[in-house]
């Protein structure tokens, strides 16, 4: 079949699914209860594009295919087309989006069963896939931006999915607005590029971009990076992501772990030749990434809400990816995007499975009238779940080990490659490389600890919910466990796509993305790290991970949550800082939100009312006041006119005579 038609199908089908489920559900309430039909449509509209992508992937010859669908807008020199680009990078991203996306759709059929908004949920989910595909397949920055803001919209709709609770809606607003701050920078970057190059398609940007004035390159890359910090939750714009956990858990897995939040990395990889020509900004990127990684990891250690742990973990892992991007290892960042999509989606879905069954416990407790309140996401009232949920536990464990970087699992390969690239960058004479390598190692240790803590508190030990002897949670249905197993499998073996070069095997992902025809550029290293050194680094990295997992296991399985108090007393103020999430929300509230909103209420609105409009009314009042006097000149009464005439005549005669 023609690739043209296939690409159009890939993009269009999810939109069709969203339109059917959304509009039919909206206007035909009887449709809303047909969960099987709704789910089948939604899954098909992601699964078909997935299989088409697999077909295109296997037959791909290395030359990018560009499909120009139709002209979007044209004015003066600006000409933007709905054009899509199939190449190594977009194919890989599309596979992740539709593959992981499809599994999460399947999972959601079980997870969302019985929810009033079942139809709405799947309409939003399909719409999200459509927008995400525009983001990764678009052939110019504006179509990418359409997807970029579009996924932001879906994120808004899904975070606030349970809109009856205003807290969720507030979290949705926060996510949308913080993303818009990033989008503001993205827009400015486009303005600069268009002014200089007169075009916004990738070929033109990559051909002409590196030739722009250095200051402008720096500005453009910096602004694009700020845009990326919004979407991909980096310092300073990451605080929306933990709040975004208000959405249903499959959403957290799909949007806030596997796909949308990696958009920023995709953007920088897509424009990697341009990014490479702004070395000073790359230093900023890698430092911001490293700092985000460690800041989020330290917060993750202190969290008791299972989803919050995973949320901060996501922020931290995204930090790793930016760290890699900033040292010019774009393909490694994308490699980690992929492995992270596997294990983090699995972890989130696993947590969803746990929450699902803890809800059951909560209901039982209410039903029995024990009067206990239970937060189904709080790990302090979990424990011992491995007995009741073997599949969830096993997949969660595999993914925990994978993210911790235990050798031979996927996270090990991608994280190790990131750290190696940072080391190499330092070895090449860039001091910043050493700095981020150090932070990366510490963060790896912390990652192993907080993930093991989460696993142990949830699944090991003895149950801690009330009446645990009588009330038993259940394993989730197959629609939920099948995706878990598939993702856990990928989390285990997915790393073999990027075997380190020192093994002498082909590093497939490097070859694919940054090879001869590959679209992704990379930093050219001058001094090579010796093989012995490379092996030593691998061994050191593995040791750190194993040590972290072992210690975490020992501390938390023997002392449980009580170990947190030990940490608290050991680290004191530092721990308070972590527990308080570095008080960033409070700081933003004090420094930005309240001044802006406060000035709107207490400065701008009164100014408008009393000064601007006051002046207008004053003019009106003055006019009325003067007319109050002047109107005696025109009363319409004949006798008063007669009196005036007489006076006038007298006055004139007086003036004439004297």
């Amino acid at each position, binding site marked *: 079949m023609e690739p043209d038609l296939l690409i159009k199908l890939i993009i269009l089908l999810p939109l069709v699914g969203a339109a059917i489920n959304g509009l039919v559900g909206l206007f035909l309430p009887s449709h809303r209860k047909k969960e099987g039909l709704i789910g089948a449509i939604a899954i098909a509209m992601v699964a078909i594009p997935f299989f088409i992508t697999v077909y295109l992937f296997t037959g791909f010859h290395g030359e990018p295919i560009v499909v120009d669908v139709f002209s979007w807008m044209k*004015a*003066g020199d600006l000409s933007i087309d709905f054009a899509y680009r199939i190449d190594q990078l977009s194919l890989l991203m599309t596979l992740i989006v539709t593959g992981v996306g499809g599994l999460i759709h399947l999972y959601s059929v079980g997870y969302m069963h019985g929810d009033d908004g079942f139809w709405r949920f799947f309409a939003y989910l399909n719409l999200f896939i459509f927008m995400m595909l525009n983001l990764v397949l678009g052939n110019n920055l504006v179509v990418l931006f359409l997807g970029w803001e579009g996924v932001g919209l879906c994120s808004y709709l899904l975070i606030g999915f349970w809109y009856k609770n*205003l807290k969720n809606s*507030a979290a949705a607003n926060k996510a*949308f607005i913080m993303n818009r701050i990033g989008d503001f920078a993205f*827009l*400015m970057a486009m303005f600069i590029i268009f*002014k200089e190059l007169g075009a916004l398609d990738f070929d033109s940007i990559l051909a002409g971009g590196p030739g722009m004035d250095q200051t402008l390159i720096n500005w453009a890359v910096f602004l694009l990076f700020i845009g990326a910090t919004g979407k991909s939750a980096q310092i300073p714009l990451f605080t929306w992501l933990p709040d975004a956990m208000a959405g249903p858990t499959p959403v957290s897995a799909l949007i806030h772990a596997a796909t949308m939040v990696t958009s920023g990395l995709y953007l920088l990889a897509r424009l990697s030749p341009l990014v490479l020509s702004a070395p000073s900004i790359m230093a900023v990127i890698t430092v911001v990434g490293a700092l985000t990684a460690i800041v989020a990891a330290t917060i993750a250690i202190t969290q008791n809400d299972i989803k919050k742990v995973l949320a901060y973990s996501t922020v931290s892992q995204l930090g790793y990816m930016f760290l890699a991007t900033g040292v010019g290892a774009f393909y490694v960042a994308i490699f980690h995007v992929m492995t992270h999509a596997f294990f983090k989606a699995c972890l989130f879905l696993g947590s969803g499975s746990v929450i699902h069954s803890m809800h059951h416990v909560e209901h039982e407790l209410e039903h029995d009238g024990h009067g206990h309140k239970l937060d189904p996401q709080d790990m302090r009232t979990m424990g011992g779940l491995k007995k009741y949920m073997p599949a969830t536990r096993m997949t969660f464990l595999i993914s925990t080990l994978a993210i911790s970087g235990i050798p031979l699992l996927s996270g090990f390969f991608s994280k190790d490659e990131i750290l190696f690239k940072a080391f190499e960058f330092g070895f090449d004479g860039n001091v910043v490389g050493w700095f981020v390598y150090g932070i990366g190692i510490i963060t790896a240790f912390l990652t192993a600890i907080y993930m093991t803590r989460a696993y142990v508190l949830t699944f090991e030990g003895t149950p801690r919910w009330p009446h645990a002897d009588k009330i038993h949670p259940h394993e989730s249905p197959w629609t939920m466990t099948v995706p878990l197993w598939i993702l856990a499998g990928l989390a285990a073996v997915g790393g073999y796509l990027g075997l380190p070069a020192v093994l002498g095997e082909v590093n497939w992902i490097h070859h694919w993305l940054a090879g001869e025809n590959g679209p992704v550029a990379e930093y050219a290293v001058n001094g090579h790290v010796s093989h012995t050194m490379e092996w030593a680094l691998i061994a050191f990295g593995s040791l750190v991970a194993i040590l972290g997992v072992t210690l975490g296991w020992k501390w938390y399985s023997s002392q449980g949550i009580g170990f947190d108090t030990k940490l608290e007393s050991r680290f004191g103020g530092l721990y308070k800082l972590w527990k308080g999430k570095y008080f960033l929300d409070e700081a933003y509230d004090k420094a930005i939100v309240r001044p802006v909103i406060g000035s709107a209420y207490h400065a*701008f609105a009164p100014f408008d009312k009393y000064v601007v409009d006051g002046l207008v009314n004053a003019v009106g009042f003055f006019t009325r006041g003067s007319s109050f006097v002047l109107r005696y000149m025109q009363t319409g009464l004949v006798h008063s006119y007669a009196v005036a005439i007489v006076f006038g005549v007298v006055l004139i005669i007086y003036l004439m005579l004297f």
Partner: protein
Amino acid sequence: MNIPFLTSIVIFLPLAGAFLTMLARTENAIKWTALGVTLVTFGLSIGLYLGFDPAVSTAVTPQLANISSSWFPGQFDIKYFVGIDGLNILLIMLTTLLGPIVVLSSWTYIGKNLKPYYTLLLILQTGVTGVFASFDMFLFYIFFELTLIPMYFIIGIWGGENRIYAALKFVLYTLVGSLLMLVALIFLGYAAGDAVNAGVFTTDWYTLVSYNMPVEMQGWLFLMFALAFAIKVPLFPFHTWLPDAHVQAPTGGSVILAGVLLKMGTYGLVKFCLPFFPNAASDYAMTFAVLAVIGIIYGALVSRAQTDAKKLVAYSSVSHLGFVVLGIFAFNTEALQGAMIQMVNHGISTGALFLILGMLYERRHTRDMADYGGIATSVPVLTFFMVLSVLASAGLPGLNGFVGEFLILIGSFKSETLASPVLIALATTGVILAAVYLLYMVYRMFWGTLDNEENANMKDLNKRELALLVPLAVLMIVLGMMPGPFLAKSEPAVQHLLEVIETKKAIGEAGVTAATEVVLPAQISE
């Protein structure tokens, strides 16, 4: 299909319809007459849209023109002269489209004095269409003033509790500007007459454009014209009549006000201020751009502080039209095209917002956001249209608002006249602020628990209301995804207008002498 006098028919059919409604005896007859007339007018205007060929369009040669001979031959070159060009076709379409929508929106909203209401509505439509279609400044002025009277009564009679104040403010404020413009116009007519029309006073737009006014004369005349239009837009700081008028006006009035009346201001800037006084316009471009950007930010912040939903949307117009004015004074095709399409976009999305708020007002008789809350549960379909309109208004890509804002901003950024990245960056923050105040409104009114009995018992949209919103929703998506054909209608005219301005500016800078002449394409005679 070639209907003679089609342009004139589209202008005056609503006026004829106004007489018909006066004759109608029953309430239903009045309503159906008004609806029928506006629908037929819209149908006929499609003939204008199809008949207008942008390929042969320049800014100064109207097509489908209807011209009379001079009303005062030899003394004053004033005549009836209407036509279609790339600058007005979209706005005329917007006006005729909103016609039936406004009539339908008033169907149950207006409960008293139906006859004068619909009569005035139809007269108003003739006025607005005439403003856009006029190629004679005197005729333009008549239509411009004609729109004031029906709007005055619509606000003053069918408005809210403070309607008299609002109506008076609206009329007086506009009148102050337009009287200044009249003085400037008379001056311009004589000056142009002396220079290029054998000493005969002229208000013919074509002749006025071909006249090169000495630079030192342009300043004051430009300001007098621009002030009249700035009040109409409204540009900060001349905007305070707008929230009052919007809040007090009935839904139909608000829709017309936001949809097309404000566009008379931005249209006037493009069509008259720029080509008549090109040197002054570019000298003052920065001033107006700064006021526009202040308006964008200021309007957004004041909007956020409102408790009255209608007032919030009214202030959002100040912010949105700031973008349009910015685009106009950037003097390049991208930005001006953005401004042209944004005029239409704002009419559609803000029109939809006012319609929806009107529907809620009909149900709950309150505009205070605090009286709502959680109504997404009771009125899901209404909520869908609300969220869609809000997103369109906030400039989400894929919907109409984005196209206009993006073109305006990207064009203004590369503008050589403005050449201020910082100013455009400030303008772009409007994109963030729009999300802040619009999402706040949705948050307050639609999300949360439904704890008020009256809110819980609200009925969702009926068929009539759906018929109002569906066309606008479709247009939001079509204009967002495929604005190409619409942009193509105005692009040649916009480009030509900018060329004319450029040429005249160069002549003005070189110093105008009797011999200098702008070469314009021949004016179409019929």
